[in-house]
């Protein structure tokens, strides 16, 4: 299942703690609030799982920018998603050293273990999600641990020399 941008979400509810965190981040950029676009988007994506249209508008308002100035950032960086990933989002390193160490096989076995069909992914929709929505997966470019390939990330966790896909997923069941 390949997820496409989905903007039909409920209005954004920002918990006060999240807004406080964001306000504090903005103070790191005393010269230009616009510099806080990436940190604000990171905070929103961390909370909501992806950047919705409402999140773009909220960010723009927060930083006194036109929404397009935020959207152009969201669409450029591979690290921002416009659609919800699985509860556990897996990024497998695709680049040379990891590929030599078997990252394409790892991708296949992770997809098999997590029941993910990647046949429809492309440059604009790189993420595939399992039918139950629990896992999603994409190839990432070099994760900077070339000596311990194949490597992958599951949400914010980093895993090196991953050999057993099922055992890895076993750590992320609930």
């Amino acid at each position, binding site marked *: 299942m390949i997820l496409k941008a989905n903007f039909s979400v409920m209005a954004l509810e920002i918990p006060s703690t999240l807004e406080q965190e964001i306000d504090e981040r903005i103070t790191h950029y005393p010269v230009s609030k616009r510099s806080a676009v990436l940190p604000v988007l990171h905070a929103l994506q961390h909370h909501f799982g992806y950047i919705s249209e409402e999140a773009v508008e909220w960010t723009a308002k927060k930083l006194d920018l036109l929404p397009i100035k935020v959207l152009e*950032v969201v669409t450029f960086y591979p690290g921002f998603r416009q659609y919800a990933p699985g509860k556990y989002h897996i990024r497998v390193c*695709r680049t*040379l050293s990891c590929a*030599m160490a078997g990252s394409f096989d790892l991708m296949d076995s992770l997809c098999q273990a997590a029941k993910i069909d990647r046949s429809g992914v492309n440059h604009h929709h790189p993420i595939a999600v399992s039918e139950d929505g629990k896992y999603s997966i994409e190839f990432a*470019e070099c994760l*900077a641990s070339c*000596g311990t390939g194949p490597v992958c990330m599951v949400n914010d966790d980093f895993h090196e020399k991953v050999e057993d896909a099922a055992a890895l997923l076993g750590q992320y069941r609930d």
Partner: protein
Amino acid sequence: MADINYLPGKEPHAREHRMIFRNVDRAGWDTSIATYLKEGGYEQLKAALKMEPKAVTEEVKKAGVRGRGGAGFPAGLKWTFIPPNNTKPVYLICNADESEPGTFKDRYIIHQDPHQLIEGMAIACFAVGAKLAYIYIREEFPEGAKILEKAIAEAREKGFLGKNIQGTGFDLEIYVHRGAGAYICGEETGLIESLEGKRPYPRIKPPYFPAAMGLYLCPTIVNNVETLCHVKHIIQMGGDEYAKLGTPNNTGTRILCVSGDVQKPGYFEVQVGKVTMGELIHDMCGGLKPGRKLKAVIPGGSSAKVLRGGEVFKIKRGDAMVDVSLEDIPMDFDTLAACGSMAGSGGVIVIDDSRSISWVLNNLNAFYAHESCGQCTPCREGSLWMKKITDRLVAGQGAPGDIDTLDSVARQIDGRTICAFGEACSWPTEAFVAKFRDELVADTNPGTADAIVNRETLLAAANLAQ
């Protein structure tokens, strides 16, 4: 270093000279400031604060340390490019975007010895007069970003950052800024655009040399993580003493990261130029896998031009021209440049005879096609064309003329773009074609028509390859 114990199985190789990586994989070491202070942490910052800022820069210049991010430009010299009559604020940015395939050194500094980096940054900020600095860290190091933020908070609490540091009147704030997964943010002007909250489209030089017109169009120094760590050691040793490490014009230590087809891949901190490629691969990395032959080495990150196993290079040594085999190349900046490649970021990727060159090149081309920012036409279009052509080769659908086309596409990117990504993406193709033409040609399919100018054919072939 007899007093240091390393974790079992993680002991440094006897040929290493651990300075920056002194505390990496060290038993009993952690990232807290208490641990760092116990071993003389922040003493070099205190020492530097007693010097004139210009004298600090002078020591770094004398040390001759060259940038460890890829370009190998002398760091001290870079600092002096801030216009002397400058009245604007000066910024310093630590480039922790570590994204050059094959490179994995900054990861360990950030995750295991964050205070070393912060101390180096604080000294550098004092030298160049920066009161605000950022660590631009790649998004894929979420844990690293947290470790750095905790370390910054600790340093602030102990009076090594913040207002009136150690009572000297010097103020400095350092913040961590996370990227979002784009390789181009490792290019310093792209990084600056990204830090300004924009798409990271690199700026054209001139006029946008960061030291004159960088962040918010103010003078900005951008240095790599490892380079900034060296600053601390330069202050500790003195520039002249530091310059005795390594070889002339290639001073100090550097961390070589080896990956690919070797028995023991890993990181090795060595004196620059004191270890040869052969010693690195066959001794430090335990050699190739059983029964395998060395086919190729990418010596300085994926953008560095590939060297062929068994290749002999004619280089100038003193006044004479001498033959140097691949294995005899000292791992320094100048010799690798003389051999037509570069020391780059220190990422060495070893390729043995079990690998298909078409497959290796295709993997790299896919990387560059994905990472081109799209600003300049030759790079945006060319990087994708190079990927599509090697896609075809790998799928057994390459036309006989494809290798010439591949080379011609690469040569139309190189030198025709705003930033060095143009070279970074075309050099692998240029070098692989130059050195492995026969194998690439052998991977083409004589039955396929030379019709690559036809867009339909190209698209169909690319779909085939997917």
